[in-house]
């Protein structure tokens, strides 16, 4: 009897010990069903490899709502262990806030590091020289145009050489088809998109191609910034881009998901995801033969040059206050596997940051993304700096004033500068 009791206690103790050993849980924040689906196999791999339980917590899908929830939780000290940052412009400020754990050493020791495109490695480095995010996917941004609509109207689909060239093409589209000629995301409701999917496209080819100055300040008062706003002003004043939908609560829905597929908007800035998620196989309103009827232009410079804008697409990071930071870092690197990156590419349309993804048979099936992946090596980018989230919001406010025809290019620049000074202090702006 006594022996049986002891055996029972031993078994119970062993069971508790085993349970405790497996009780470690990693909480991963993800948003959007496509992202969750893309991570399914990776989650299983992490659980198997490290003997942990992975809890995937679904966060609100719109980027702005996601960031709000994430930052609120991180600020309160109860954020998820691993999370993606929807827009790379938030990273420097999250680093400054102390939310992200550095992963420089782990990333460099990782066997996938050498396979990363240089542009991805550089984009991941923060102003303090450390790396805090895993650059697993890239957003390659260009101008997408309806080749079929332009061909039918007898409009040239040749690459525009300068901004003037680009605007003239938009005017020609308007004149010959009666449809909107070119869209740059703008306004407050678009959130970070006004900066990331619009403003910086033009900025990299302007007289002020970078806004992160060497002294840590932000260079926003130059002529190039004003000239960028001037392009918006010209598009808006000449009715070349749709304005009213951009002032609504979900400004991307009408132009991107309705007008462009219907040919009512003929050209727009977008990332590689547009070929998959917005108008391709994962779209609710797909354009038949999207890879044929939708062409791409690189972004022309103000007076010369062509730019393929690269950005980190929702890079992943580890919470500096994660329950087990070292374990979370190991789990994070699993997200950088070719399998996960190709899964993301297939479901969302972003570009793998690893060169060896090109040889993956599943990636080769994504014919529309293969040439974009190859072009990633030549991608240009804006150097990140603390205060970029304020710049992003300032650009949104400035472009909103332009949409509402309340100001001109110089006024928009003043709105941006004043806003950034208000938020970060007068010293922050050069």
């Amino acid at each position, binding site marked *: 009897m006594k022996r049986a009791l002891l055996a029972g206690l031993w078994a119970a103790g062993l069971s508790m010990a085993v349970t405790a050993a497996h009780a470690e849980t990693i909480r991963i924040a993800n948003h959007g069903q496509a992202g969750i689906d893309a991570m399914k196999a990776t989650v299983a791999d992490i659980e198997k490899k490290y003997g942990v339980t992975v809890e995937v917590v679904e966060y609100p899908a719109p980027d*702005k709502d996601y960031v*709000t929830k994430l*930052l*609120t939780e991180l*600020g309160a000290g109860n954020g998820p262990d691993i999370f993606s940052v929807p827009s790379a412009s*938030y990273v420097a*400020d*999250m680093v*400054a*806030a*102390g*939310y992200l754990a550095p992963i420089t050493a782990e990333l460099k020791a990782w066997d996938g590091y050498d396979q990363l495109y240089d542009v991805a490695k550089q984009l991941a480095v923060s102003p303090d020289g450390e790396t805090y995010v895993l650059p697993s996917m890239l957003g390659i941004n260009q101008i997408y145009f309806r080749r079929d609509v332009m061909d039918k109207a007898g409009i040239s689909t040749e690459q525009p050489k300068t901004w003037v060239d680009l605007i003239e093409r938009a005017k020609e589209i308007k004149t010959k088809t009666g449809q909107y000629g070119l869209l740059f995301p703008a*306004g*407050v*409701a678009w*959130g970070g998109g006004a900066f990331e999917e619009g403003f910086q496209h033009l900025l990299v080819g302007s007289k002020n191609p970078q806004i992160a100055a060497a002294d840590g300040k932000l260079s926003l008062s130059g002529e190039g910034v004003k000239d960028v706003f001037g392009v918006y002003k010209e598009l808006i004043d000449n009715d070349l881009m749709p304005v*009213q*939908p951009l*002032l*609504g*609560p979900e400004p991307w829905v009408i132009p991107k998901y309705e007008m462009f597929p219907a040919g009512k908007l003929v050209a727009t800035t977008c990332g590689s995801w547009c070929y998959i998620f917005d108008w391709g196989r994962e779209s609710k309103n797909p354009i038949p033969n999207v890879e044929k009827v939708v062409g791409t232009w690189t972004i022309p410079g103000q007076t010369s040059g062509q730019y393929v804008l690269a950005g980190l697409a929702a890079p992943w990071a580890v919470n500096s206050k994660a329950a087990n930071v070292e374990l979370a870092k190991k789990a994070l690197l699993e997200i950088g596997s070719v399998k996960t990156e190709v899964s993301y590419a297939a479901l969302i349309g972003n570009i793998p940051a690893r060169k060896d993804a090109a040889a993956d048979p599943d990636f080769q099936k994504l014919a529309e993304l293969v040439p974009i992946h190859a072009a990633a090596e030549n991608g240009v980018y804006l150097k990140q700096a*603390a*205060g970029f*989230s*304020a710049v992003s*919001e300032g650009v949104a406010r400035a472009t*909103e004033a332009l*949409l*509402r025809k309340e100001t001109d290019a110089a006024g928009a620049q003043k709105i941006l500068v004043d806003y950034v000074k*208000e*938020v*970060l202090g007068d010293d922050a702006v050069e």
Partner: protein
Amino acid sequence: MTYEKRVSWQLRLILLPSVLLLFAFVIYPAIYSVYLSLTNEALTGAAALNPRFVGARNYIRLFNDPKFWNSLLVTFLFVIGSAVIGQFVLGLFSAILLRRPLRLKPLFNSMILLPNAVPEVVAGFMWISMLAGGERATLSRIVAFFGVEPTDWLQTFPLTMIIIVNTWRGIATAMILLTAGLSAVSHEVYEAARMDGATPRQIFTRITLPLIAPTILLYMLVSTVSTIAIFGFVYALTRGGPGGATELISIYIYNQSFTAFQLGYGSAVAVVALVFSLAIGVIYVRVLKVEV
């Protein structure tokens, strides 16, 4: 200990949980907001790690911020349009109508109460679909029947639309309160007035309205303060757009605190909004001449 003292202590003990909850969830957050408003506290950036005291800088910025003044104006028009005029007039009309013996009275009652049974975000999305642009949206189809050009109503008439939608949602509350006020008016007073030859209009303006004035003022107080604080319903409908046309003070506070991530500045706006609400409350209480 005397009986009175014992009862007094018992009453204090009974009140203690409410006082603690009130302190934890109302008074402390309000005091903390005042403290935050004097700092540059943020959700991200260096200020999140090391917030510092900035004195009245947030308040100076606020009074020079045209978007703040715009949100105050929008809130004022929204409160006047939906709470003071829309809900009150239709609520009073419904209350008077439903005092009469009607055949389908329970059905009308239910219809008026129904908007309150729908969660605000669900109601918001329902109205979005009805007011959306395009020929298939409900309102556009109705007006198209009369030969009016369909439009995106939330884009073309944003403030008017949120006033109408909020009026729809708040009629029931107004009706319930005003029904209570009307039932306190004795039938004998009406009978006496009729015997003296008073017309229905005279009865309404000289008897009904003066006698239910305290209820009306109480409704105005509750309705004004709660309408100033409305957030979810309008946020679901328009998110404050287009171009700030429906950016109520509550949405402005949210946008500053949680989309621009400036908790300090957002708190300053919240403190000013609190002062406005308190001032309105004090005015109503003075007019009501009640002891608080």
